[in-house]
């Protein structure tokens, strides 16, 4: 969806990153439930996503 001039970002653009992070979090929550070892490691990486994004924003997105 292309934003009209002056209307700001579209809903799709606004929610693109939040949706990605939500899917990543859910995948992580489920991964540790279905298996051990490699599945646990996958869940750690997936759930570290939201935390990493906060750190990134604090370091790089202040203005």
């Amino acid at each position, binding site marked *: 969806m292309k934003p009209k001039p002056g209307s700001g970002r579209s809903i799709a653009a*606004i929610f693109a990153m939040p949706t990605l992070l939500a899917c990543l979090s859910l995948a992580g929550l489920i991964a*540790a439930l*279905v298996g051990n070892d490699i599945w646990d490691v996958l869940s750690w990486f997936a759930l570290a996503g939201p935390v990493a994004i906060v750190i*990134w924003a604090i370091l790089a997105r202040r*203005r």
Partner: protein
Amino acid sequence: MRRSTLSAWAFVHKWTSLICTLFLLMLCVTGLPLIFHDEIDEALNTQTWRPAHPEGPLLDYDAILARALHNRPGEVPLFMSFDIDRPVVNVTTGPRPDAAAGEMHFASFDHTSGELVAPSNGDGGLMDFLLQLHTDMFLGLPGMLLLGAMGVLFILAVISGIVLYAPFMRKLDFGTLRTTRSARLAWLDHHNLLGVVTVAWVLVVGFTGVINTLATPILDYWKADQLADLTAQHQGGTIAPGQFTSVHAAIAAAEAAAPGMTLQFVAFPGGAFSTDAHIAVFLHGRTPLTEHLITPVLVDAQSGRVVGLREMPWYAKALSLSQPLHFGDYGGLPLKILWTLLDLLTIFVLVSGLYLWLARSRGDARSDVLDALANGDGAK
């Protein structure tokens, strides 16, 4: 979205948040140490216990039971349970099969020698205190249900928060934190960012928390419905204590009837979890997913034959699966640390939300959302 619709969402967000925030803060703070329940208990427990014969053979369950009954003359066996990470068998006895919880006696035995295992001196009850505060605020079932209602409000607050995220972000790139213009804008941007990145986790922990608050009615219903149904089909008179078949044989028969499952719990005849004529053996699965799913197997207490087996109904499964997803204790220490960080982010969202309300501009008829719209951020 129309302005009137947005202001309705803003109304929902404000009031659901205001009502539940203090409860949620309590839950987030008491929940932090509870994530590390096992580690804290282990660290504070100064006793180190080792089995008498670490590599030796395990005793027969009948021998353990005989030992337990010998120590408690005149009592009958009620339950037998099994530690997960050490060869310890726990036996609960009482004066009668239907003894009240206060009359029960709990003792732990070394599965390799039959010797008594001293109870863990633990943390002096600190973790139990936090757990009870977190579960029901010492108010019993009404407390649990009240916290469940707060959880529902919290879920509504999160959902309305997602809707309100959009008008604020029309002109901002994802992750922007305006820290130099005003304190209020800085808090607002942090509130929005931290809130939106934790959405999925917080909804899962919130929703499973709400299900956990319904544990008592769910388990009561399961017992009344399914277990009663299973036991009603197999009534067979009353068997006096002491006339049971070998409990060891009953466990072996149950394990054979439910292959690939691990023994969790045994309920002796006459108690709340069995019938007057059966030993109920509860087994659970072996993967992280299935270890919370319990299958009761009913064994005839006289003949030792398996008479019935029933998987948990869906609502009891839902409750069982809600527990790991709420506690975060199912994926090793790194998962617990991530649970802690996400909990801390949630505390920040709650506190910043409270700040934004306390520091709201005068004449709050115009909320932030409407201001955002008035500034042209969301206008056509």
